């Protein structure tokens, strides 16, 4: 199990780092959280039953570490991503796509953890349903239901966001709403 852990450290560290960043952790926070995750995992690795469980298990630990810092992290992340966007050139042909992605992320990150995690693990981290369910310590059926419900919540959040933009006063956002829609 120790050897397996060493292998996992190498292969999973970038993924866990990315996962935490995607959840909104800043570079510095993600740095710390990755260390914390692997430390905790190292201390508890003896409790693990099989190697196959390692990946979801690491995600589970990472999520719990992240939750401890979420309040701070979400705030930082929002600021960070906002700054990234502001720094992006307005005529960038991908900017509309980036804005749409940003809105989706924003909607996701404002979901309760209960709904955020299933989406993050399944669509961002590309875990299987089984792995994601294991990471969250919930039955697969529950996970499926939560994914479905979370997608609906995202749709609702996006619709509200859109309505707000349309009714809102012109400003920096007004320019963006004026952009022609891109077909999916």
């Amino acid at each position: 199990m120790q050897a397996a852990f060493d292998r996992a450290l190498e292969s999973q560290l970038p993924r866990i780092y990315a996962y935490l960043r995607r959840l909104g952790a800043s570079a510095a926070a993600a740095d710390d959280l990755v260390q914390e995750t692997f430390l905790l995992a190292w201390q508890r690795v003896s409790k693990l039953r099989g190697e196959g469980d390692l990946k979801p298990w690491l995600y589970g630990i990472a999520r719990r570490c992240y939750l401890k810092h979420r309040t701070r992290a979400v705030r930082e992340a929002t600021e960070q991503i906002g700054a990234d966007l502001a720094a992006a050139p307005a005529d960038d042909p991908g900017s509309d796509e980036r804005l749409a992605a940003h809105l989706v992320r924003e909607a996701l990150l404002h979901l309760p953890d209960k709904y955020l995690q299933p989406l993050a693990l399944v669509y961002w981290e590309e875990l299987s349903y089984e792995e994601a369910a294991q990471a969250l310590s919930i039955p697969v059926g529950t996970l499926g239901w939560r994914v479905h419900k979370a997608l609906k919540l995202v749709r609702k959040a996006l619709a509200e966001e859109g309505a707000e933009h349309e009714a809102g006063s012109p400003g920096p956002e007004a320019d963006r709403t004026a952009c022609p829609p891109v077909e999916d």
Partner: protein
Amino acid sequence: MRPVPQDLKQIERRVRRSRIEFAPPDDLLDRVRGALATRPQRRYAGAWGWAPRLTGAVAIALLAILLVRTPAARRILGPRPPLVAVVAVRGPVQDGNGQGLAIGDRLPGGATVVTGARGRVTLVTRRGSEFTLAADSRLALARDGKRASLESGRLYCRNRAHEFDAISTVAGTIALLGTTVDAATKDKQTVAVTVVQGEVRLENAHGRAVVAAGTKAILTASASPQEGQPINVAAETAWYQGRGDVLSAAGDTAYLIQRGDGLATELWVMHADGSGKHRVKTYTGTYWSRTGPWLPGRRSLPVEVGPLAWTNPDFARHQARWSHGGPILIEPASRLGAREWVLDVTTGQDAPFVLPAGYQAFYKEASPNGRLLAFSGRYQPDPKSLEHEEGGIWVYDLTTGAMKKMLDGGNTTPISWSPDSRLLATSDAKDYGTSYPLVIIDVATGEVRHLHVQMQGAGASFSPDGTKLAFCGDFQKGGSWHGGVPTSGSIFVLDLKTRGEPRRLSPAGEGSLMPRWSPDGKRLLYATIRSELAGNGHRDSFRLSVAGADGTGSREVYSHKGLLRAAEWSPAGNALYIITIELNPGGHKPAANRILRVAIDGSGKVKDLGGAAEDSILPPQERAQTEAAFADLREAVYQFEVGKIRSYEGRAKEAKAAFRSAADIFAALVWKHPLAGFATADLAAYVDQIEPLANQSDDALFQETCQQRITHFLSWALLLYAGRERRFPPDLATVERWSLTTDWGMKIEWIDNTDAEWVKMIFRCPEGDSYVFHPTPNRAYPKVGDVIATCPNHPECRLVWTEGLAGMLRERLGIEANMAQQRRK
């Protein structure tokens, strides 16, 4: 802004696309590896790691403080609640920490009880289960209060209402299935299990076996449990019953007092000089309570306690009532059964004394060797029929349980044993109260010898050396009886060796009885009892005289106005102990004893040793608990009465709730008031009697009520109608109308026929349907065997005309004829 797609597939795609790629800093892997290498030193908790921990700690502390203040938290966090109360202690008894235990102590689950040599302890629970530990035993109670562990020694366990699951022993587990069981550890891996009641399942690593009541099984750690072998359970559990090893308590006097307005009888013991009065035991019930003579060894004696007859001073308020509030003519007394006990006064250990089913004793006497019980009485094999009833004198072997009939007939006179336990002296009283031929019976051969054909005799007594017989004889016509002996006779002494004429000791026509030999056999004590009509009642008086066995030197030693209960020689033969009964005016309140010591050395000194409730003073704590127990007892009786009345009314739910409440109070009484001295088996008998009533199904209760209504009340109403109208009714509606409009002139137990609700009840099944009447031709009286009424719901509930009913009808017709004659006058 792009329109928000409604299709969730598209949302899914957008979420997937919103993923951003991040790459970790190059040195992160190395830093993590470094951190892991120094793992014990670095357990990173984040910059704010202490904050949630501190908040959590504060929250937990606050929660704990809050919880501690709630009853639920006290249950969880506080000291464990007591599980058992110590109600009887003898010899060295300690808990697991070596602390001595005393009556009234309470122990929680998890406690251990240890008895030393000659030690013994009885523990009871709130729900009425009982553990009695013999000497050199060790019992551990499980924390959950569902199991106990007999680590060594012997245990008698009465498991009420499935309170405990199992007892573990060195040889395996005894799974209790609501039972009474006696477990004796034989050695390191063997336990003998005797099942007194119910059944148990024995389990160990090798298997399991079910053992039924009345059998004994040996449980061995190394083998599979076996079924039990049939056994004499009474003999096997004799240690628990407290018979056997007898110490001398010579000179001590036992007496009964009554307390709590008829609620309880207490047995007290005092020393020869009247000092050291202490209570040994409390029994429920008072009427006709009496003690028998000391059993051999003068350590234990029979105690007979009448039914629990409760006279409530606050009757009007604390009385069960009909639901509709109608009048109730219930007697202020509850009869839950009379019981007899054998009580060891030195240890307080008692055992219910029961003759085999069907036998009833009027006079009984244990043999001097303590093995046989002779009694005059009756035997009725079928409790519902008098058909095979027989009277006579039997000898019951207390060790083997064998029953032997010695004499036939309606004997009601006392029996006396010879000192060698071989002969019985009594009178062959074939016709009650008219003829008393004195006989001697050889118990071994059954031979009956008529001693003196011309002489009548009763109340005989063998001299200490067994060569002479003193008896009462020469009875005059008429007169009264005292203790089964006519009060009109004289005392005679018969020499059994020479078989000469009996020698008269007391003058003829005086009425003497109760001959008692002095310990040296040289003198005789006898009593002369007088009862004269005076004013509204009797004036009783008695005289005691002592005479030489040869008939010389008869002189009066004491006379008193009152009733004589008993008179005995002191063991040294220099004094008499007399128990008199001082009746209270009116005669309704319990009578008070007085115990007197009369010197017969010529000084004639009389010492009043007390013996009444007033001078039998309990220590304050015992007194307080006794009073509290009486309050509980009153409530239990009240609830029982309510249950009975609601049953009569067919209100099943209310009836069962009341019975349940009564049973629970009886079950918890000893636990709550261990210092009140109540006999655990006495109260357990009430619980056993009432609990089935609380647990029965509604259908069973309705059927029982229906049975009572149709056989008890409806038959009475029919008898009253038939007696008054001199013919049988055409239908029940006629009797019902008649009942409501006619003064019955008498009351049927609880019924007053002015109460319409009640009258309606008599004629209907508790499920509401009227009873079906089977009219007789021409309204004639029915013949024996005719079915008069049936219930449409309960085919087994029916009224059949019996010989008994026909007799009662004849009686009614006679009464009615008398009343008519009176009216004409």
